[in-house]
């Protein structure tokens, strides 16, 4: 509750929070099929209909309602983003904690593997994984998840290493506290704040990467709706039907903006230098 109030009291946090909330609502409606029209029904007579009362954001080449497809696409993109970030955060936290706590050889092995993954440009690694597993929603989840795992591993390992040298961990050792107690209570509990920030920012990247993969035809497969796919399809009709490009483009941009704003606000709020006010 305190954190919600803090977000609302923070300039960019308020904007980001509202954007994210609206998108979550749209995504939910899109996933539940509560859209103005059926997103895959082709209203053949109304092909390339300009935005208006009947079709708020117009229709596409096949006469499908853009607004409904947009909502379904947001639902799709958010599903991929949430699962992939959950994957990356979970894997990264476990690996990062293991590397930091076990140290020595384990640290070396884990971090070298992460170095290998980091040596690929993000989109290239995702492409490679998609090639191996074949395009599709769950492949995108795994691909984006693996791409961002090293980042979470680093985000967890660094602070975990410094927490490990803090006096309260030394104190715990003098009592004879078990490793699992120290790792969960003293390390993990103190990592909640940086992880929250990172998860929010990672959602922005994940949305971006998902849209990129779909744009290249390697993410969500038609006829399912996806923002990247819609944008890619709009390219040849740019001059006759600009709404096909503008709405999905803005939808992607604003969703990423929302998470970036929220992430920035959370970083300000949870920043260790300002921690005392909110801990």
């Amino acid at each position, binding site marked *: 509750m305190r954190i919600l109030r803090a977000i609302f009291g923070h300039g960019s946090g308020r904007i980001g929070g509202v954007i994210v909330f609206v998108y979550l609502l749209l995504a939910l409606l899109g996933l539940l099929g509560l859209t103005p029209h059926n997103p895959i029904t082709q209203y053949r007579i109304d092909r390339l209909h300009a935005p208006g009362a009947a079709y708020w954001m117009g229709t596409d080449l096949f006469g499908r309602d853009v607004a409904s497809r947009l909502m379904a696409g947001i639902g799709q993109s958010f599903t991929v983003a949430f699962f992939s970030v959950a994957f990356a955060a979970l894997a990264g936290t476990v690996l990062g904690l293991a590397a930091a706590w076990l140290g020595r050889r384990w640290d070396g092995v884990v971090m070298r593997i992460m170095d290998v993954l980091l*040596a690929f*440009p993000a989109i*290239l690694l995702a492409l490679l994984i998609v090639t191996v597993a074949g395009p599709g929603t769950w492949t995108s989840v795994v691909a984006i998840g693996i791409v961002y795992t090293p980042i979470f591993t680093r985000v967890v390992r660094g602070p975990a290493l410094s927490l490990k040298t803090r006096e309260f961990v030394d104190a715990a050792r003098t009592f004879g506290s078990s490793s699992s107690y120290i790792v969960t209570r003293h390390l993990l509990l103190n990592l909640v704040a940086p992880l929250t920030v990172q998860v929010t920012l990672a959602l922005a990247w994940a949305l971006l990467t998902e849209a*990129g993969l779909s744009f290249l035809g390697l993410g969500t497969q038609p006829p399912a709706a996806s923002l990247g796919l819609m944008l890619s399809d709009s390219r040849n009709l740019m001059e006759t039907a600009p709404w096909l490009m503008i709405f999905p483009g803005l939808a992607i*941009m604003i969703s990423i903006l929302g998470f970036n704003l929220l992430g920035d606000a959370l970083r300000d709020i949870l920043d260790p230098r300002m921690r005392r006010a909110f801990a």
Partner: protein
Amino acid sequence: MNYLLRRLATFPLVLLGVSILVFVAIRMVPGDSITAMLGTEAGLLTPAQRDALAAYFGIDQPWFVQYWRWIGGILHGNFGISVTYGRPVLDVILERFPLTLELALLSMIIALAVGMPAGIHAATHNEKPSDLVVRIVAMIGQSTPSFVLGLLIIYTLSAGFGVLPAMGEFAPLWQDPLRNLSQLILPAITLGFAFAASVTRIARSAMLDVLSDDYVRTARSKGASARSVVWRHALPNALIPVVTLSGIEFGYLLGGAVIVEQIYALPGLGRMVLDAILQRDYALVQGSVLFIAFNFMIVNLLVDLAYVALDPRIRLGEQ
């Protein structure tokens, strides 16, 4: 030098990991490569012909033998033959690389030329109106995917001014510099926009951090002017995060800007890899991914060198 030596020691290790990963990943792609190579014609082969082909390409051997041969070839500059181009993989890559390198350089120049001054200005005018403007633009820039911006630029140009970005046959820099630049400037701006936004944000926050450091207070206590405090005392200390970010972004751009190359129809490395993946040209995928990862690691090494030049503490092996 201890620091650099340590970094160098892990270099071959990571490269080995990258090569194994790529190799194994390609071997995990469903379907056999002869079918992938020949398409429907593969069905016309007799089993004996198939085996002969497999032996010819060496794919009848266990994977580690194949890996060994591949690596051995690479060490002699032989990356294999691309099936789609019918030419050595390295030739195909090196043909595409200049464009990618030039595009990456142009984008970075734009990003630094815009981002550094903007970031420093915002930091020194913290919480003033101009800082707010810079922050808003940077935030929007960072949130705009390159494909959205690219399409918007193309749309604005064609709908608003009736011009189309220069496409068609790509002209290398040394043949027709003007045409080359006119072809690359829009893609470079497209890529440079988000890049500049990141540089701005990181330069701003690094400067803000540094400006509250003790030694900046010392400089002020000496009577140094505001300008000298910023440029002489604060900036050198704020450069490390900027160099890190620029290095990573530049390194990634060297891997080809797949989407932007696609939008502007540029024959760069990114599109080549994408096509190779779609065409199942495995030798080319394998070779180019390794090439890209290698470049990325070289850039990282250069970034480390820059750290050493920037900060004497790293030079002496602390941290």
